[in-house]
């Protein structure tokens, strides 16, 4: 054996170490598969840990990829909770039976529209799909509907995200259900003609381009507008809540939410976290950190954003965002949206 070189031993050790699941990085803390930005989640989670002493590990990634992982892992999953920025993903997980129902009294304070019918997921914060418009340009007072964005006069003046964006897909689903497939198809075709293949990866960049006057209007989530105004209070942009009035379909909403994994061994702890996130304290934090709408009834949103209830919201249940997602993707692909 004297010809076995010294490098072999560390290698073997490494092999053994790597094969053994003893090298586990999850202690007895709660584990969240998180599809939201760390910067929105971490402050609230830190507050929770400080109050309860319960540690939380965030396993961050893309919502869809994590849901995929949860599904394949089945009973072997480490995840105690699944946090997503899109109701579509949450509902999809519910349909696949990946989540366990929460105690009814726990979710009762949350508006029924923003949680699963069987309480397998619950919304945490809501966002509105709105228009951002340059106040100094010719379009300052002309846009009233998302469908106006297909107007050929907006040629090269429109900003939209690329068609893999979750908020964008959810928005299209709402319009498809509220206004019909044909109208939505025409709308997409019109926008496609207006943007000439030049779309954005980030909502932030759309708001920036509209503020600079390069573009006149864009389709974004409401909080991006206020985030820009925080930095540049004099920026010539404003929010337009589209499709109001008697015949309007209303603004598309989407929620970010959380679900408890069916296979968690720490259901009680997990419910504690959900209770904290849906409590007035947790809800206020969400409202402040990101200017989103709290989903708990009775908690006010940030005063700078249009008050919930002061405008019309499209009457499409959140569960439809999951069920109709494939149909939406088909439509987007059929039109060939960039």
């Amino acid at each position: 054996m004297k010809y076995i070189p010294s490098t072999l031993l560390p290698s073997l050790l490494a092999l053994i170490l790597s094969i053994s699941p003893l090298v586990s990085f999850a202690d007895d803390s709660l584990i969240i598969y998180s599809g939201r930005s760390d910067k929105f989640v971490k402050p609230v989670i830190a507050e929770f840990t400080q109050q309860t002493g319960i540690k939380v590990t965030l396993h961050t990634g893309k919502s869809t990829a994590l849901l995929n992982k949860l599904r394949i892992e089945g009973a072997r999953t480490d995840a105690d909770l699944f946090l997503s920025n899109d109701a579509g993903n949450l509902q999809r997980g519910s349909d696949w039976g990946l989540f366990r129902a929460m105690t009814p009294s726990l979710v009762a304070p949350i508006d029924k529209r923003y949680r699963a019918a069987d309480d397998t997921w619950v919304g945490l914060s809501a966002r509105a799909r709105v228009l951002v418009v340059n106040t100094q340009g010719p379009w300052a007072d002309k846009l009233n509907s998302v469908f106006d964005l297909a107007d050929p006069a907006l040629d090269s003046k429109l900003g939209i995200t690329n068609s893999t964006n979750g908020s964008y897909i959810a928005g299209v689903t709402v319009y498809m259900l509220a206004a019909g497939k044909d109208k939505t198809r025409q709308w997409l075709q019109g926008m496609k003609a207006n943007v000439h293949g030049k779309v954005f990866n980030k909502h932030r960049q759309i708001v920036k381009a509209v503020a600079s006057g390069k573009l006149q209007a864009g389709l974004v989530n409401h909080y991006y507008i206020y985030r820009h105004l925080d930095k540049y209070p004099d920026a010539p942009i404003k929010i337009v809540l589209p499709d109001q009035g008697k015949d309007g379909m209303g603004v598309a909403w989407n929620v970010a939410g959380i679900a408890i994994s069916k296979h968690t061994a720490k259901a009680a702890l997990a419910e504690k976290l959900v209770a904290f996130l849906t409590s007035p304290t947790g809800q206020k934090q969400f409202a402040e950190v990101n200017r989103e709408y709290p989903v708990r009834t009775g908690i006010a949103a940030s005063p700078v954003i249009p008050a919930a209830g002061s405008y019309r919201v499209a009457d499409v249940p959140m569960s439809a965002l999951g069920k109709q997602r494939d149909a939406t993707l088909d439509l987007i692909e059929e039109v060939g949206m960039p």
Partner: protein
Amino acid sequence: MASSFLSFTGPLRAGRRFTSLGGLATTVVLLAAMPLLYVIYNSLQLSANEWLRLWSSRLPELLWNTLSLAVLVAIGCVLLGVSSAWWIARRDFPGRKLATWLMILPLTVPTYVFAHIYTTLLEEDGWLGQLWLGVFGETTPLPDLYNIWGVTLILSLAGFSYVFLLARAALSQSTRSLEEAARIQGASTLEVFWRINLPLLRPAIAAGLAVVVLHVLSDFGAVSMLRFQTFTLSIYLQMSGRFDYQAAAGLSLILVMLSLTFLVLERFFRSRQRYYSARHSRQQPLRRATRLETSLIWLWLGLITLLAFGLPLAWMLSWSWQAWAGNLIDAEFWGYAGNSLMVAVIAATLAVIAAFPVAFYNARKRSVGSQTLLQFSSVGFVLPGPVIALGILSLLLAQLPFLYGGLAALLIALVIRFLPLAVQSQDAALAQLTPSVEQASRSLGAGPLETLWRVILPMIRGGMATAWVLVFIDTLKELPATLILRPTGFDTLPVRIWIEASEEMLELAAPAALMLVIGTLPVLWIMMKNHTVKTESG
């Protein structure tokens, strides 16, 4: 070669040894082919109708995009790699050694970092954007990277070093007598290059291009950041956007067939061209570059360096400085760096060990069977990372659930992904080893194991080190499989870069990218040292 060996040791013993070695090699390759089985199984679930739909709706565009991208990047890499290699191997100029380094440093920057940096720099308030608007006026639209040219630029900058390395090695090994003869006949430098150098360089260029094209076919980072629909991106979107594994598997199968065809063609092309290695060429002093040449050389190399390494490095340093000043570099950050290093070291070591039987078997046997094994070990390189990851995830959970939960799944995926790199370098090193050395050792009474440790392994040390370094570098940069298979809460530097970059936290993405560069430097140095030794003694 094989026949003299057989007659020396006797057919019976040789046969037995080959069987156990062959068994080991077969086992490794079968394990590496596991994800392919998953792909085949899943694509078998597709009905004829679904195949038809895939074919008519997606395939023409994907094929066109992927193939044209591969061709364009190949051209870009040859332009950058061969030109720089020729100057460095054929002229003596001040800073030549530094130039060599500058040409391989881009290997330390992952494609998704390249893509991210260049899109940021080309925004209106980015450095290049400002420069552009300053030079061409406020109204000129900024160049757009979200198209095939942008992706070509990024992937060429990220990949030309492979062509450079192989072309330089071939140039410095090949005899210059042919060139001299041509010159005596009155050929100009350019003519010599076109008619002597380039044809002789063909095998090296082909080998370099093989690596480049395989990187292009399997690239996920750049194409997803720049949203250019290639097979890999489309496969990822099918899986994660629609949860449609079967369509993803169908597309993967086509991609695998495409890549294997390419590999076979490349092998065929290379095997016909083995005439260039003239071992006993005199060591001649390099021609000194004239002053004009020196400035031209540095102008060209400087431009390449600026784009492929200078700008990215400056960007990383500038944002890292902000992170440092803002106290954002905390214990967590060093944890990510530690995780990356640990995974890369273990995966590279395992890959080198696993690759040895395959390479050794082929080196001794050189039969159709061993060649086939060698080809099949490439499967990890041609399957998209996310597909390998999902294949392993499913197989482990279904068959070996006790292995799931730690690092094992990730390490298996990484070894499978980068096994081909280790196999190819070891195969190349072993090809230069004559069996007589081994026979001498055996005839002096050493057992097979002792021969292996004391004779064979020391002689292919350089090839082993190169194999280790290549796997290490790629593992350190690996993103898609790590995203899916990392243990819970276990983040590596690429994963953090990905997360922070998609949240636009540049001051957090930059230090992680910088750490990747710094972490790769020592191993690159090891490889270059080996390289120089080999070329000088050759």
